[in-house]
């Protein structure tokens, strides 16, 4: 049921129009960060206010909404954001990736491939990929305008000379359509390849930093690398201990204080669906027993 004290999807119409205009410009210039007059939301900056504003401007009453944090639907902040839109927009919600029309995410792209009828909304803390190399916005904006990305390549190259490999494992920078270097939000680099040629619309909202950017479907998105050090979207060299999936991103869970641990899918919906379809991992039986106890 919608909360009548607030407008549909919380934000007033003028604010939504302003955000919508920014989204359209973002789609027209893939990877470019469009400044927008981010509003103070009833949740803290840094907790998804950018994603929430983009979702608020995007949702219609016909949508089915899914929210994940770290790949999971039931992490507390995901629960909180889902509840916010249930209250203010009256939208249906789901945990199933393929039933959702709008998915708001923090730090993951779902394992289930997205389709043309879906919109993926990313929460972004620091939208500027060059920020940790150059803290000044006035400078980084100039660098983007001049397509001056040498600093980024130098940083990655220094990694290689120091560590023998590029030492960035999440928020790994990408180049969009050969023009803008873009921050993919702090997803693990394992997820980077899913951004390229994706049939869904991908929208990125950074509330505190007041930026929106976007990737239309089927956009060229290339993770930065070097010929002799190609991009490596690696993950833990295990299969999921619950569902046996070998191709999904895994969380490492410490199970006792004697070095015991297990690896489980970070995408809880993907893992559940696989188990329901009869796939079992090495420790699935143990878990069933424990859960039933």
């Amino acid at each position: 049921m919608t909360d009548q004290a607030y407008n549909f999807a919380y934000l007033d119409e003028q604010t939504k129009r302003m955000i919508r205009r920014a989204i359209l410009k973002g789609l027209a210039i893939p990877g470019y960060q469009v400044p927008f007059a981010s509003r103070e939301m009833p949740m803290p900056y840094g907790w998804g206010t950018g994603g929430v504003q983009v979702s608020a401007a995007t949702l219609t009453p016909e949508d089915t909404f899914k929210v994940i944090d770290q790949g999971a639907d039931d992490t507390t902040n995901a629960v909180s954001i889902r509840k916010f839109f249930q209250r203010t927009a009256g939208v249906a919600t789901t945990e199933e990736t393929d039933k959702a029309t709008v998915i708001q995410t923090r730090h993951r792209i779902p394992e289930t491939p997205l389709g043309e009828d879906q919109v993926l909304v990313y929460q972004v803390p620091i939208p500027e990929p060059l920020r940790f190399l150059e803290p000044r916005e006035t400078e980084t904006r100039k660098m983007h305008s001049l397509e001056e990305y040498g600093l980024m390549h130098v940083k990655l190259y220094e990694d290689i000379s120091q560590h023998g490999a590029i030492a960035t494992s999440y928020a790994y920078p990408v180049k969009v359509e050969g023009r803008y270097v873009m921050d993919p939000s702090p997803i693990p680099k394992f997820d980077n390849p899913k951004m390229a040629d994706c049939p869904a619309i991908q929208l990125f909202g950074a509330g505190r930093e007041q930026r929106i950017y976007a990737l239309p479907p089927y956009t060229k998105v290339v993770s930065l690398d070097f010929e002799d050090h190609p991009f490596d979207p690696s993950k833990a060299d295990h299969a999921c201990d619950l569902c046996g999936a070998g191709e999904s991103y895994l969380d490492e869970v410490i199970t006792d204080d004697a070095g015991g641990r297990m690896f489980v899918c970070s995408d809880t919906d993907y893992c559940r669906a696989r188990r329901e379809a009869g796939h079992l991992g090495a420790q699935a039986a143990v878990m069933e027993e424990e859960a039933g106890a």
Partner: protein
Amino acid sequence: MYVAVKGGERAIDNAHAWLAEERRGDTSVAELSVAQIREQLSLAVNRVMAEGSLYDPDLAALAIKQARGDLIEAIFLIRAYRTTLPRLGASEPVKTADMACERRISATFKDAPGGQVLGPTFDYTHRLLDFKLAAESEAPQASEAEPAKGQTPHITGFLNREGLIQSEPESDETPPDLTREPMELPADRALRLQSLSRGDEGFILSMAYSTQRGYARNHAFVGELRIGSVPVEMEVPELGFAIEIGEITLTECETVNQFTGSKTEPPQFTRGYGLVFGQTERKAISMALVDRALRWNELGEEDQGAPAQDEEFVLMHADNIQATGFLEHIKLPHYVDFQSELELVRKLRREAETQSMPEVAE
């Protein structure tokens, strides 16, 4: 053994219930009313109004109650409420020369027309705990005088008559509003002042203090500090003229700073300016000092690389709601990113072990 964490929703509901109980505290102690907070914790109310950018003492008092006295949390409540309010119009600029002053002091002149009025200040209190306040006491009564008649002229106006202080350009342009447009740098002075006026008191204070200690020292004198109420007027299109819609209390500080001059211009004093909702003089003075420090470029001064001179640094970090949100978000789960780092470190260590370490990594 591992069982996936479920029940986030119930955990949140329980946390909120517990929070509400803690907020009320011991029920054998009388509950605070919003009116009590508004009347007896008025400086906290003023700070919440100033940094919440909303002049409403009752709402600020409510926010303080709801936030259990956490003023940044209360400011946050006010800000989030403020964004949902429709904008019916804009007031005329207030005239602080028309202020009915409760307090008005100048450090630059021993006396001046309008006089030195101490008003309700802590300044000369000895900071000794007053144990009488611990007991319920009779309402104190201060002696009263006739209110001053007419305007209280600005001190800088006297200096201006001799051309000793730089006059500021007048403009009827609508100033920018950082709550409606994204901040764009470099910012003009109006935007900087807005940002400082709603910025965190502690941050602005520390920035101001740093200029006093030599990080872009600009030799500030408090030319004038005044606190009092001013009428707010708004033009009503149907009437065609402005009518008074209420009164607000403001604190205004003008500093008189080191002079500049060049071969073509004789030396003149310069100004820093602070204007804040409510009785908030620490904030207003701090704001004036930081404003002055940020003006180095337009006044032809040297960039000393001091933090308070760095517009982007000051403006991007002055807002406590942005700062606290981002700071506290690191409490949220980050285990996916951490896992990614863990795998990378393990891989690098494996590679380092298997390869013979190169003598020098150039």
